């Protein structure tokens, strides 16, 4: 069984955001190299990504999410607001580059 790999979005050396440098097709063995920014959504932590996925699956109902997760409504809303702020900052950083 292969171990699940986690995309390293933060450089372990300097803490900066990493970029995709090459893409490889396993079918035809073609490798494409270049500089590709990682989308802001992918820069969220795994917990945050799981939260966003759950949010979509719950059709955006925070009440439903709170009930499913066993948390209070404001706790879930606060977590969502924190993700919104983080995404906004990431998008602004991307625009300024």
């Amino acid at each position: 069984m292969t171990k699940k790999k986690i995309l390293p979005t933060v450089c372990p050396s300097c803490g900066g955001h990493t970029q995709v440098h090459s893409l490889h097709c396993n079918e035809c063995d073609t490798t494409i190299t270049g500089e590709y920014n990682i989308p802001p959504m992918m820069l969220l932590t795994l917990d945050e990504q799981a939260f966003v996925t759950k949010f979509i699956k719950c059709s955006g109902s925070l009440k439903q999410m709170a009930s499913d997760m066993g948390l209070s409504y404001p706790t879930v809303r606060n977590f969502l607001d924190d993700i919104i702020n983080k995404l906004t900052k990431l998008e602004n950083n991307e625009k300024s580059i």
Partner: protein
Amino acid sequence: MKNLFNPFRYIAGTKALVLGVIFIISSGFMLYSNDMIQDSYVHIGLSDVALWQVMAVQFVWWLIPAILLYAGGLMLSKSKIRIIDVLGTTAFSQLILIPMIAPMMLPVVKNGSQNVINALLAAVRPETGDLMAVMLYGLWSTLFLVLFYVWNYNAFATSCNIKGTKAIVYFIAVQVVVTIVGSIL
């Protein structure tokens, strides 16, 4: 341990409000049955007023800070806050009053504190047992008083999504204002 200091991660809104109102009424009954009243924001004194007055005072000492905290949330928070969460979480915080008041119902504490007051008024040395009871209750109530502030702060921070310095400063300001107003009234 985290739940002990911030139960509002798990409970807020209507559920917390209903439970909170039950806690407020229960603490009101406990005070009334012992001829006591919450005569200031965080102070309990002797009184022989009617039950409805004890209850009314209990609700006032919950509602005034709750409304001030909600106003702060509207001014300082970037989130869409709900009044039901602020009222619910702050009402639920009143649960702390129950273990804080409960020992006052024990004869050893009730009579002990009365004996200490009488001895001090008569300028005589109070009995060691009475002093011990008063000191132990003092420690107990101080612990719960700290927890009362921690819960109230977390109620505010969670329901209004405010963190850091501005949350602490506003919360302290509300506590100071309510305590001063309470001591004047």
